């Protein structure tokens, strides 16, 4: 499968004789090196997986053994130790609401920047982009104070509203809208469509892939967020799963089987999603670069 040497990166100056054997050998070496490195990336997840299924006798052995015992007890016990269903639903709610709000505000703002002409448009757009240069660290304390003044500490909203606008989203969607041929708008206009109608039935259906990319970004960010929920919540009832897992790890710091079980259980949904829409994720990352370059 790796017999053909790729265009980039390997290969010495062509020498007519042993060239083929040398090339084939280089191909195999390359594949082997790649495989070993890729397995190293997988190893930590595999170790956690094995540990989570260990029998008690097998946890504290050295060197660690690498075959799971398929003992489900750690999972059963860890499930009983906390209200995981509630934490999971908290994460789902916070993530879903963040995505919905941020996508809506981004679509509307991007539309205005692309399709509606108003005085100071370019200046305002620059004012939006400037946000990318404000380090998130600078906003931690002031945002806490503002949410405190709004009486929103310890609520879902404290974890959602600060992410209500996505500069990345506005930027990408504006780019996309600007790439639409103006004849679309002319045609819609002829048919008597207004801005909202044009946005809803022409522009939005076309920008589904862009929406998916932005939604994915917000999803990964929101689902994995830890620092902000840790700061703005103390009540377990509104906390997401990451905060709950950290608390479990702190309280039961020697119970490696259960800690690993919780970690694996929390990682699994993302791994499944990852395998389902891997292509979109990769395209999203490759595109995200365009914002700076």
């Amino acid at each position, binding site marked *: 499968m790796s017999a053909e040497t790729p265009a980039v990166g390997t290969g010495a100056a062509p020498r007519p004789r042993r060239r083929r054997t040398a090339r084939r050998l280089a191909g195999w070496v390359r594949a082997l090196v790649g495989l070993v490195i890729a397995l190293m990336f997988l190893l930590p997840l595999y170790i956690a997986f094995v540990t989570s299924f260990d029998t008690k006798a097998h946890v504290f052995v050295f060197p660690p053994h690498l075959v799971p015992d398929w003992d489900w007890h750690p999972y059963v016990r860890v499930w009983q130790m906390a209200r995981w269903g509630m934490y999971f639903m908290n994460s789902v709610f916070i993530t879903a609401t963040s995505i919905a709000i941020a996508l809506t505000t981004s679509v509307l703002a991007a539309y205005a920047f692309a399709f509606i002409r108003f005085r100071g448009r370019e200046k305002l757009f620059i004012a939006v982009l400037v946000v990318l240069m404000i380090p998130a660290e600078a906003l931690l*304390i002031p945002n806490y104070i503002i949410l405190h003044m709004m009486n929103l500490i310890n609520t879902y909203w404290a974890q959602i509203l600060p992410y209500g606008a996505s500069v990345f989203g506005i930027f990408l969607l504006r780019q996309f809208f600007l790439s639409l041929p103006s004849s679309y708008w002319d045609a819609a206009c002829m048919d008597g469509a207004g*801005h909202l109608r044009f946005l809803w039935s022409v522009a939005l259906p076309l920008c589904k892939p862009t929406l998916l990319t932005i939604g994915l970004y917000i999803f990964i960010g929101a689902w994995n967020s830890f620092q902000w929920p840790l700061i703005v919540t103390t009540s377990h009832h509104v906390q997401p799963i990451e*905060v709950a897992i950290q608390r479990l790890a702190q309280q039961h710091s020697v119970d490696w089987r259960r*800690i690993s079980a*919780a970690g694996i259980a929390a990682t699994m949904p993302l791994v499944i999603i990852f395998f389902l829409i891997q292509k979109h994720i990769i395209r999203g990352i490759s595109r995200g670069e365009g914002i700076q370059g």
Partner: protein
Amino acid sequence: MVVETPETIVRVRRPRTSRVRGGWGLAAWFLLPALLFMVVFVYIPAGLSLTLGFFHYHLLGVDTTFAGLSNFAAALSYPVFWTALENTLIFAAIMVPLTIVLSLALGFLLHVESRFYASLRTMVLLPYITPVIATSIGWLWMFNPQYGILNAVLSFFHLPTLQWLLSSHWAMPSVALYTLWHSLGFDVVIVMAAIGNIPSSVIDAARVDGASSWRLFRKILGPLLSPTMFFLVIITTLGTLQAFSQIYALSGGAATAGGPSYATTTLILLVYQTAFQDFHFSYAASMAFLLVILILLFTLMQSALAKRWVFYQ
């Protein structure tokens, strides 16, 4: 809603007639939701962040008095602040070069069109989407000096074993190791996207001229990839300065975060602890202010270097 101002009528005569209709009256409705969030949660806080450090601020708002530079003076004379600064710089000094070198190496290694290599790429990217806390606690076990796999590997190769997170010397490199594992896949994808954008005719032409692989990289691929490398330097630096979750989890959480003996206390962790565990908001804000200045300095320095080294097509 649509206000027909004289201005819009004049503009109608310009060539791009299609995107003309509207004006502020209409645009405002579309912009308002996003701008509202940005004003409340970005612009006002950004303004606050500049001023907060100069006051004695209390959440209950009883006595907000002007403090001058006293918060800053206190921060600068606090030894842990300097330790945190040092740790932050060490973390960045490990992360940035390793990220660049490894993502370039892996990017070239894995840039092959085949299902085998596609699955290798998947394996490298997988850690990036895993939740940081959930996987950090798995790494805690791997770092365990007595039973962890890392020391098992070291002793397999007859190397001296390490105390990893328990040693004040190795704790920060251990955090960097986890962070590399978690984020490198992202950087590799970016590098591969950039490699994919290089026209193959350029490479073929160089090959026909008999350029060696090293010369090909030095003279052609390097310059063509330099904007990407610069981008990676920037985002790795920013990511390093912002890193919080893994440091918090790997150093044991609430009570022990930043340990052992401040070995993993970075500036952002110190800001967090000062503000949200000790509730010294203004004092913490002054530290955050200094951190932001550090970030600005980094960015300026990197842009200055970029002017010399980065080649834009």
